[in-house]
């Protein structure tokens, strides 16, 4: 319960912002008290980003005013916002990977001992001191590329603190974090709040909001539709507020009636871009009419496996069969012909051409098939008709079929991909992070569609970093850890904790949990280890589908000795293909 009686650190009054055709913010009132963690909740396109852009000086409101400590203020731009103590931690980090932590923090805020040289020593001192104050020891000399995502986030927060931010805006800070990392970040946020910082926390994840926030403001279609205190609300209530109707957070998946194996994978090995073996001999099958979920912390070989299965990457060895046909190393075009559909994890990189009209994106994988093509020519009428149908059937919210896909919100972009990939007669469907970054309404919709496809007899492979999603949808669950499948269990009876343990350690032995820690050195070593493709021997005792360690370049266990700076350099960005 919040009984803070001080004046608001920030007050936004009657903020209205109109864009051609839409009112993005419609008289929004928001006040944040000092030391408060205030969650901002809303669907994609509800107006959260616009509101935060106004606060950060990136947009000017048409009406309304902003008060800082009770004083009406005009915020001219991001640098003005920073000067006034407002800082933003973006969802996609704005860090330079090849620079050190200290240099990243200094960037744009160089402390000058004299007009020519940087005062690095003073900067170091302040960074270390700030880290200590908020409960994380950080080595300012480590390259950002060698840090795990969780630590990179801390660097972003430090950057804000270094600039003496009093109001921090965190845009979906947990989207890229593991449950463990999320806990740690929450600890940091609580300490920040305890020191009097005000935090605006933007998230889609209802249970997180309930856990961390002091107050929750819900925005729908540009208006504040409600304000709640966690103790007086629950997930269903928040979801209903957000979407404007009752939402089924967990889609009723019913019972599956699987037939024979449709997609069979045996001893598949795949190398990553740098030639390290990322997938180390996985074997599984997906039966027609079932959903096999692959759980795992991001970066454990899932991307490479999916790319190999969908023809984007050639496996080094192993065999993939689709309905009895050997499709190992077959390209995307042929796989599509054989009835495979693929919803890629990175919709903006693979799934869509953002600069193209929505309707062109809706035929991106069918453009050369009838009726969308007539001989060598495109059939614009057929494309347009299908686009109209898809927009209606899949509830894609767009002004028209001809606006470029890049102007749509993330949820609607994903619906477009789903509309395209689900709409054909398919035998196997690979869903890679199908709901990443989406709001509850879109998630519910996509989950329903997936279940419907399953019941229509499709074999579905679901790869997701969201454990909840895997748990909710899967008939069977495989856990991937360092390129291997370390567990393969029945979906409905699986225990969340067990799966989480396999995800974090590759085995069911709780002692291994000691490996996860808040210490910087261990985090760096772990990141470096995963980076170099080091193979722990941990998988062999996990049983089930585990593959005994057979990797030729395997080192004996994780190298704990490789401290900061000793790890291999980050992803090779200079390289060619």
């Amino acid at each position, binding site marked *: 319960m919040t009984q803070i009686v001080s004046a608001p650190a920030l007050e936004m009054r009657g903020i209205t912002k109109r864009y051609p055709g839409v009112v993005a913010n419609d008289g929004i009132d928001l006040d944040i008290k000092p030391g408060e963690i205030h969650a901002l909740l809303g669907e994609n396109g509800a107006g959260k980003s616009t509101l935060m852009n106004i606060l950060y000086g990136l947009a000017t409101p048409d009406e309304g005013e902003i008060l800082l400590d009770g004083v009406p203020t005009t915020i001219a731009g991001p640098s003005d916002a920073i000067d006034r103590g407002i800082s933003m931690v973006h969802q996609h980090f704005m860090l330079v990977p090849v620079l050190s932590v200290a240099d990243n923090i200094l960037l744009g805020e160089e402390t000058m001992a004299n007009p020519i040289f940087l005062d690095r020593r003073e900067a170091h001192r302040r960074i270390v001191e700030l880290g200590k104050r908020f409960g994380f020891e950080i080595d300012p000399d480590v390259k950002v590329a060698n840090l795990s995502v969780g630590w990179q986030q801390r660097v972003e927060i430090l950057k804000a603190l270094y600039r003496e931010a009093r109001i921090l805006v965190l845009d979906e800070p947990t989207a890229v974090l593991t449950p463990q990392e999320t806990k740690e970040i929450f600890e940091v946020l609580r300490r920040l709040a305890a020191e009097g910082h005000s935090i605006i926390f933007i998230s889609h994840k209802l249970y997180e909001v309930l856990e961390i926030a002091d107050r929750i403001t819900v925005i729908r279609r540009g208006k504040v539709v409600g304000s709640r205190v966690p103790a007086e609300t629950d997930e269903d209530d928040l979801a209903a507020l957000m979407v404007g109707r009752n939402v089924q957070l967990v889609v009723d998946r019913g019972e599956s009636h699987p037939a024979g194996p449709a997609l069979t994978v045996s001893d598949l090995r795949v190398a990553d871009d740098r030639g390290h073996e990322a997938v180390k001999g996985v074997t599984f099958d997906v039966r027609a009419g079932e959903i096999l979920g692959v759980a795992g912390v991001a970066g454990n070989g899932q991307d490479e496996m999916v790319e190999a299965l969908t023809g984007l990457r050639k496996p080094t060895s192993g065999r993939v069969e689709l309905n009895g046909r050997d499709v190992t190393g077959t390209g*995307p075009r042929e796989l599509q012909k054989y009835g495979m559909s693929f919803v890629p994890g990175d919709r903006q990189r*693979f799934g869509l051409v953002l600069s193209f009209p929505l309707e062109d994106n809706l035929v991106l*994988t069918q*453009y050369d098939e009838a009726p969308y093509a007539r001989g*060598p*020519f495109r059939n614009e009428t057929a494309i347009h008709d299908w686009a109209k149908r898809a927009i209606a059937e899949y509830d894609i919210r767009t002004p028209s079929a001809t606006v470029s896909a890049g102007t749509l919100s993330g949820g609607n972009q994903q619906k477009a991909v789903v509309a395209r990939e689900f709409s054909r007669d398919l035998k196997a469907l690979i869903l890679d992070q199908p709901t990443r970054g989406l709001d509850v309404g879109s998630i519910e919709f996509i989950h329903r569609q997936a279940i419907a496809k399953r019941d229509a007899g499709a074999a579905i492979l679901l790869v997701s970093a969201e454990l909840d999603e895997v748990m909710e949808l899967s008939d069977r669950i495989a856990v991937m850890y360092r390129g291997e499948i370390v567990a393969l269990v029945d979906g409905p009876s699986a225990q969340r904790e067990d799966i989480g343990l396999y995800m974090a350690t590759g085995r069911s032995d709780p002692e291994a949990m000691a490996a996860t820690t808040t210490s910087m050195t261990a985090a760096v070593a772990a990141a470096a280890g995963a980076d170099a493709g080091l193979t722990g021997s941990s998988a062999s005792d996990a049983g089930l589908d585990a593959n005994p360690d057979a990797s030729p370049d395997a080192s004996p266990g994780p190298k704990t000795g490789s401290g900061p700076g000793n790890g291999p350099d980050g992803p090779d960005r200079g390289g060619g293909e």
Partner: protein
Amino acid sequence: MNTLRRLYALSIIPVVSIVLALLVGSVLIILSSPASQGHLDFLLPLTAYEALIEGATGFSFLNVDPAQHLSFAISFDGTLAARALTNTVAAAAPLVLTGLAVGVGFKAGLFNIGGTGQVLVGGFAAALAGAAVAHQPAPIAVTIAVICGALGGALWGFIPGALKAFTGAHEVVLTIMLNSLAALIIVGLVNDVFKISGPTFARTAGVGNATLPILFGRNGSLGVLIALAVVPIAYTLIYRTTLGFEIRTVGANPSAARYAGMSPRKLIILTMTLCGLFSGLAGTIEILGLGYYPAVFGTSIGFTGITVALLGRAHPVGILLAAILLGAMRAGAPSMQITAHIPLEIIDVIQGLILLFLAAELVIRRLLRIRADRVTPGELKSVARSYGQGNV
């Protein structure tokens, strides 16, 4: 989005670039006036540009009397205009083709600066083929020579395309080298193997009946029609066929193209070949207009194609308009030289300035507070990408 706003968003930067180039050009004309006029002449740009317009269109709005007094007097002479416009159109025709050779490349995310080499090889192939069929009936001779010229250019586009696709070598580097290679090999061949005795300078044999027929005016040849016909073909190819969709997808997002089952490798080779074919046609209509291939065939139409493509925003219709504008500048330059005593080269300077301002789009937007639009095609991105990473 309505059509008018779209049109504005697409054309504002080219228009501003032209205006700025003309303004800076006039400063240079004023600064150089002591050399040409004997004194600093602040009105010289006006006279110069007026003469340029008159030379390109036959339309005159200034009267300069012998005492250097200016007065406005609109005059229009039908025959003069017909001749001027024919000159403009004839100068524009090869630029349309070299512009397309760059613009279509941009659509696939490729920066083809091998126009010059492709023009030379295309022209040379047309000259050799033309000489071989010089005594056939004209329709047959012209058809064969034109086809050979186009194929010659296509070959010179195919080579860098294949090298890029299979080795990952950068198309900018490849095409620059192939420009020199083409120029030197052909000069060698014309001076040696294919030199004919008779003329005082080295040249290949005449193309006889393969010479492009003049359809209108003094120099309005079949080449103008060829260039005009290619514009709708290119438009249809890019925007109305599935192949064009593949080309545009590879250019806009190579990863998505791979995901969609397209073959970036095949498309790179195909697009570069097509670009070479367009340039080859440009060289063909130049050489088949001239009637033979001279050892000293200096041509800038290949490089001018880059300006044309950027000015036309890589769209076939825009390229047509841009080519007509630059063609008009070519056609009007001699009249400017005669009337205002300004060297022809000022046209190259203005053209270079246009390119400079087009390339500095971000700076221009910032300075003139022109809002970024969302309809800009990715052509400038391909230019930038060409220097950074060129891989697919």
